[in-house]
């Protein structure tokens, strides 16, 4: 979306990287600095098992942040990502455990429920003209309540669904390359990221996502059915939250109905640290991934260093501000 001059021949991955190298250098630098800093401070940090733990800790927030990125690029915001994730996990629990249907149904139900709820938020925003902040705040509360209602305020366990925990805990990569036991959850995060990048950069939906955030009125005056496209973006984001729901449920081997509140702020923080503007119109998935990694590295590193928990919070707050400030400075210097 920038001034990057990619030739049409250049492969997609190259383009992704190039766009990244150009725009995200600094968020990336913040990440590298954190990694180096923590490695020097503790020998326990830079170890395969810990790196994998960090990646796994990134997976859920990363997927949520990708969903949030889409909505934010349209100039909106989605506060319901956290509770929607939980709601989808509960739906999967109902389908798999209460009804005892096979795994694929649970997966479809979770993603479908997410897309449907996203569509509902999108309808509130596009058709009823409710500001996204409020529409998704209301949605967040409704879903929080509904998760408890549907689950009967109890966690739903997936003990009867063989293979469910493999969704996030197993390692397909590890089976092929035993030295690299990257959990499937992380793999799914990257697949979602690639798919979202592709949609944003190469499809009509992506084009309208940016256009809506840039100047919705002018898109509408160009004869585009902006409402429909906006609803599609929210639905897509909701579907992605459904995937996050499956990831977390599989990781915990249970759908925890009270979880999810507060996750929205963390997701949005990752998005903004990654350089996406809350004003809409610009943003990248790669940046969001880096943002989510920064947050996960920070949390993990501070724990490894046994920093007192209250200070962990203080430092996290400060680093979020610093990371975004550094990004601002870079952008200003580049004009």
């Amino acid at each position, binding site marked *: 979306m920038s001034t990057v001059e990619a030739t049409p021949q250049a492969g997609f991955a190259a383009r992704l990287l190039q766009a990244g190298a150009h725009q995200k250098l600094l968020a990336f630098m913040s990440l590298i600095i954190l990694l180096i800093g923590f490695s020097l401070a*503790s020998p*326990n*940090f830079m*170890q395969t*098992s*810990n790196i994998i*733990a960090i990646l*796994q*800790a990134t997976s*859920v927030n990363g997927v949520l942040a990708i969903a949030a990125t889409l909505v934010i690029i349209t100039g909106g915001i989605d506060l319901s990502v956290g509770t929607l994730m939980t709601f989808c996990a509960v739906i999967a629990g109902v389908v798999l455990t209460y009804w005892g249907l096979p795994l694929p149904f649970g997966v479809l139900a979770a993603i479908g429920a997410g897309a449907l709820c996203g569509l509902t938020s999108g309808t509130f925003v596009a058709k009823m003209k409710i500001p996204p902040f409020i529409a998704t705040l209301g949605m967040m509360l409704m879903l929080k309540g509904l998760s*408890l209602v549907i689950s009967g*305020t*109890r*966690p739903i*366990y997936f*003990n009867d669904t063989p293979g469910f*925990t493999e969704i996030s*805990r197993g390692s397909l990569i590890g089976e092929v390359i035993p030295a690299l036991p990257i959990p499937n959850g992380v793999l799914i995060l990257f697949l979602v990221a690639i798919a979202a990048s592709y949609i944003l950069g190469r499809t009509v939906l992506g084009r309208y996502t940016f256009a809506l955030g840039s100047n919705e009125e002018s898109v509408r005056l160009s004869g585009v059915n902006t409402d429909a496209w906006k609803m599609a973006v929210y639905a897509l984001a909701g579907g992605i939250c459904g995937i996050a729901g499956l990831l*977390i449920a599989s*990781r*915990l*081997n*249970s759908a*925890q*109905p*009270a*979880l*999810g*509140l*507060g996750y929205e702020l963390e997701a949005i923080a990752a998005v903004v640290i990654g350089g996406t503007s809350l004003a809409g119109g610009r943003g990248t998935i790669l940046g969001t991934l880096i943002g989510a990694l920064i947050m996960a590295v920070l*949390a*993990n590193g501070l*724990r*490894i260093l*046994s920093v007192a*928990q209250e200070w962990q919070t203080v430092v996290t707050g400060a680093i979020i501000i610093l990371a975004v400030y550094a990004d601002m400075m870079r952008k200003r210097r580049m004009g």
Partner: protein
Amino acid sequence: QDKMYIPLISKGFQHQFWQAVKAGADKAAEELDVEVTFEGPDNETMVDRQIDMLAAALAKKPAALGFAALDSQAAIPLLKQADEAGIPVIAFDSGVDSDIPKATASTDNLAAAALAADKMAELIGGAGQVAVVAHDQTSRTGIDRRDGFVNQVKEKYPDIEIVTIQYGGGDHLQSTEITKSILQANPDLKGIFGTNEGSAIGVVNGVREMDRTNVVIIGYDSGAQQKEAIRDGLMAGAITQNPVGIGYETVKAAVAAAKGEEVPAAIDTGFYYYDKTNIDDPEIAAVLYD
């Protein structure tokens, strides 16, 4: 690092109860000359955050590990990992559904809440309306304390009616507002049970603000305000666990297990009912905290 390192992953961190557990752990750490860290998520719904904390703790290659599971199942893969790495795990506060923990230092919340129900029945004369202001709808402790109380009333006191159970998240202010609404809706209410410190203080505040001081309040845990309310007679009494003891015993068992010594599988740290009459007994005062 020559000192033995033992991380404790708890269910919470900011609340007084957990701070008291931490105090007990720190005390044991000093006596036994080991290094202890104490960490827990912001609230008891954040199951996955606790798992991340557990993962980070394991990365530090501890000698042993204390763990208060928000949800046992979710933690099993990591606990297995600890087991395989030869890191003994001591469960505290509530048990873990698994044979991995070498020992469990906990309170029987169901029995403790049932005791609260008995005391409530005694104080209101075995009949009338009561309400519960609980701290959490889904966490283990929240469920156990609620159910312990409710089931005991149902089984033993048919004349007592539980008119409502509401949840204030342990937030003092929210519990206050909840209490006021309950009092407003139930003019004949005779008693309220608050299931943790924040809830109990909220109940006391609400009753005071509505000027309905004839309502019998039974609390849970301690803390300066709760102790004061009991001394003032505003609160009839409260259940207290022995959080300092939980922390202390956990670390002690962890050190023993790390040294390869035998540890008892169940360490019951006990609970007590205290009121105006026994609050200053040495035995009670020892388990109360500010």
